């Protein structure tokens, strides 16, 4: 079966990122497809590669990154949510004349259409809310 996941909560601040990550691992472990993980609202902060959590806590960005590399996942942060919250890639940093970019690979920035596409293309959409 084909799943899609939406994450609304910021990393560490809310458990929704942890839950979504554990759910994503279970989807893959159970042999299902994971069509896309769409990060919306504060969920876009998950894509920041400059988080430095304490050593004895989970590295959420690193976990998403490794899971995506192992399973060729599509991790998308919503562009409107991300711009206003300061999660940007080098292209957007240049366009908006910002001093730095912080979106880490393999996260990509795209529009809300990717959420609608995920909702229509997947058999099940599961949202992790704040």
């Amino acid at each position: 079966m084909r799943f899609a996941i939406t994450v609304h909560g910021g990393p560490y601040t809310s458990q929704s990122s942890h839950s979504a990550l554990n759910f994503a691992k279970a989807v893959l472990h159970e042999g299902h497809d994971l069509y896309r993980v769409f990060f919306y609202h504060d969920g876009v902060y998950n894509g920041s590669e400059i988080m430095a959590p304490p050593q004895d806590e989970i590295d959420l960005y690193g976990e998403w990154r490794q899971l995506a590399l192992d399973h060729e996942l599509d991790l998308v942060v919503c562009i409107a949510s991300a711009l206003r919250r300061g999660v940007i890639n080098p292209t957007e940093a240049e366009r908006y004349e910002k001093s730095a970019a912080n979106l880490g690979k393999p996260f990509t920035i795209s529009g809300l259409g990717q959420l609608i596409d995920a909702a229509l293309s997947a058999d099940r959409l599961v949202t992790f809310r704040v």
Partner: protein
Amino acid sequence: MILHTVNKPPSHAALSDCLAVMASDDLMLLIEDGVYCLHEVSGDSRVHVLTPDLEARGLWDRLPAELTAVDYAGFVGLCTRVDKIKTWA
């Protein structure tokens, strides 16, 4: 047929909002802080509880007999049994 997830304790409206619109053959899964609702839904066999969230909150030995504990694989399994998922927060 819908799987309803609840992630807030009884002090929030999420549980009562969910119960008010749940059909008799729907399923419920308590996740995150929603597992604190376990006493409020004791006796309702539609209700499942996410084990890792129950353990994290020190409630493992309080699960009412009528409720079903599931792990993340079981959460995925519940999703496959229903047509769609509705989240209450």
